[in-house]
């Protein structure tokens, strides 16, 4: 929009910091290009439109100094920059909410989003750790999902019964699916919170097309009907947020390659033992 006119960089008296930056740019692959610039605006520049209108309304005796209809001051929106997600939010809190609900505890291998670090850990263990599978044949490996309970079980089913009986969980608790159930569930969007995002924002292909690493039967997420079945309230709210905004972002063509996860703990994959198993 603005066309700055570059003025020459001063060559004397440079600060050390500018020296360092310049030597970096000489490396050739430094993408940063900011230089301070005086911006000259010509008479007909669009930035001058409002002021010119006020001026001419004054000349034509149409001017009211404090007009009733105040022009709205607009606020920048926020957008989720995660490749494939086109959520747009009007407040930072909404963005944070969305991010925390849908992107924070994401499994690297299958892209499923879990509501907490602990559930993510358990998921990775139970779904992607081959050692777990082996050990589970002989030991009680399935942990109770309720934090602090500490009990372990030989099978998923035992755990489920325990959850229902002791902790009064619903029989179809979203975050306790077995691997085998995935293939059969056509309508369940339980763990596929990421699918919720895709559905509501219309960029399904990007994220859903990444095939998961599971060995059984080439099951991939896009075979599931993406449905708006929210689980916890958080997820529901986030999904509705993203659903209500029309996707106006360009379709991202950059998928996160399967071989890389975000570092820093937001998305995790199998990391080997973390010392929790008995």
């Amino acid at each position, binding site marked *: 929009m603005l066309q700055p006119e570059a003025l020459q960089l001063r060559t004397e008296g440079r600060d050390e910091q500018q020296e360092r930056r310049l030597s970096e740019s000489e490396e050739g692959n430094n993408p940063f290009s900011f230089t301070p610039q005086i911006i000259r605006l010509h008479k007909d520049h669009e*930035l001058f439109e409002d002021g010119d209108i006020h001026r001419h309304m004054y000349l034509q005796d149409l001017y009211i100094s404090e007009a009733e209809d105040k022009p709205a001051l607009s606020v920048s929106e926020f957008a989720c*920059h995660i490749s494939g997600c086109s959520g747009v939010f009007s407040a930072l809190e909404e963005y944070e909410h969305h991010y925390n609900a849908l992107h924070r505890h994401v499994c690297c291998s299958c892209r499923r989003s879990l509501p907490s670090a602990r559930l993510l850990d358990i998921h990775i263990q139970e779904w992607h750790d081959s050692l777990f599978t082996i050990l589970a044949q002989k030991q009680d490996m399935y942990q109770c999902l309720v934090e602090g309970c500490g009990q372990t079980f030989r099978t998923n089913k035992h755990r489920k019964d325990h959850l229902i009986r002791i902790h009064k969980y619903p029989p179809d608790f979203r975050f306790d699916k077995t691997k085998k159930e995935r293939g059969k569930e056509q309508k369940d969007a339980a763990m596929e919170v990421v699918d919720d995002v895709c559905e509501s924002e219309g960029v399904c292909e990007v994220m859903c097309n990444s095939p998961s690493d599971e060995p059984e039967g080439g099951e991939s997420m896009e075979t599931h009907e993406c449905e708006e079945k929210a689980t916890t309230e958080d997820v529901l709210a986030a999904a509705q947020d993203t659903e209500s905004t029309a996707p106006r972002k360009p379709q991202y063509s950059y998928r996160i390659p399967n071989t890389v996860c975000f570092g820093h703990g937001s998305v995790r994959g199998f990391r080997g033992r973390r010392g929790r198993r008995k």
Partner: protein
Amino acid sequence: KLAVENSTLRQARRDRQLVSKRLLLNEDEEHLIFPQDIVSLLHKLQHSGTEKEAHLKALSKVLRDPAAQLTFIKHENSMHLLVGLLTGSNAQCRLQAVRCLHELSHSSHTNVAPACLPATPYLLTYLSGPSTKFTELCLYTLGNMCPDSDVVREKLLAQGIIPALASCIENQRHTLAVVEAAAFTLSQLLQARDAPEKIIPIVLKSTLPSHLLSVLTPDPQFGLAPAIECAWCLHYLICSTDDNKELLAQGALSQCSSLLVSLGGAVTEGNKEDGIELLIWPLLRCVGNILSSCPEEDLNAQLTDAHLPASLCALVQAYLHTLPALARETVWVLNNLTAHSTEFCSALLTLNLVPGLIQLLPFSQGINTMILRILANIAHKKKVFCVQLMQLGLLSALCATLKMADQEMVIQSLDILFMMTVSSPVVAEEFVRQDGLSLLEVLQYNGAAEMRQRSTYLLEKHLLSYQQHITVIVMQPYCLC
């Protein structure tokens, strides 16, 4: 009705045809006049003796009507008759005759004004006359005629309108109404399409610029209206010329900025006179644009008022919600002020103006992008400024702007982040501590190359070394070990 006018004007501006005329109303406007046939009026004028004045008065009222205007100019000899009365020995007739011409000049039909050309040499001559009302009418008539055709302007220039306006303002500088009218007329000339080639060079060589500047004084008895006209003239002069060295030499920058400081003070005190923004607007533009003609080393000599940065920030706050476009132009001026001046960057810090600017980062449509430019200007100058910016909370503000939908905001945020990060390990560590790395990681996969390149570069070259635990994981193929 206002909304319709507003959008009509906007479209006209986009078509480069934004033109306004001013009508000076008579004191006894309320008196009704029976519609009279123009032709018969003209006939009466031609043949009557003692009632010419009355007929002229009637004619001037009839000529308010656009249809009558067209009839008038089509009528043979009508203008000749009018000019005769304009230059005759009867003073009252002269006044009424010029009023008729004034009504004609206000016509929205572009072929009416050119029909008044025979009168212009006399109108120009009368500019140096003693009667204020008469001079005003002459001036507004001339001013209204200017936008309508190249031919009209060419003739006026040849007839010496520029020197006439110059001596008018000079000789009658204490008559506010005349100064206002003369500056209005000049502004009409300066907005013409061919002004940069044909008009502005002549104006710059005349005494007009210095007279215009002398009107821009904060002296309250001088009145807002003449200052408004003069300021808009200066704006048209400055923005149409690439090199404003002469205007700089005449003190344009210091005069405009001093007045801005006074106005900023008045506005902050709640002293918002009606229409004060009509003066602030062109002054901002004058200062903003003329800064590009001012070499860095002369900046301090030219800008004697050290209060300018603070006044500009005050203006932004004062108009942010009521006139966001004005606030936007104000931050544009701040950018130009800080672009190449370490002193003004330093002033923003020492005068504690930066927190207020950071708080403006949510506001879009050109405001926050310009604010980031200003902050980048500061960061660019010195390492110690970067540390100070960090202490004022810029890093956490950037953690928010990096999440914005506006690509330009994200890219500029990355640019500032880069400058701040390389300035000092303290800044880099703080950014990592504020969990900024995850923001950058997300951007590495963004659709826009500019974002990917910048975030990757920052992470790889500068920030990852500050991380305690490197957790980039490469997924192995499924294996049993």
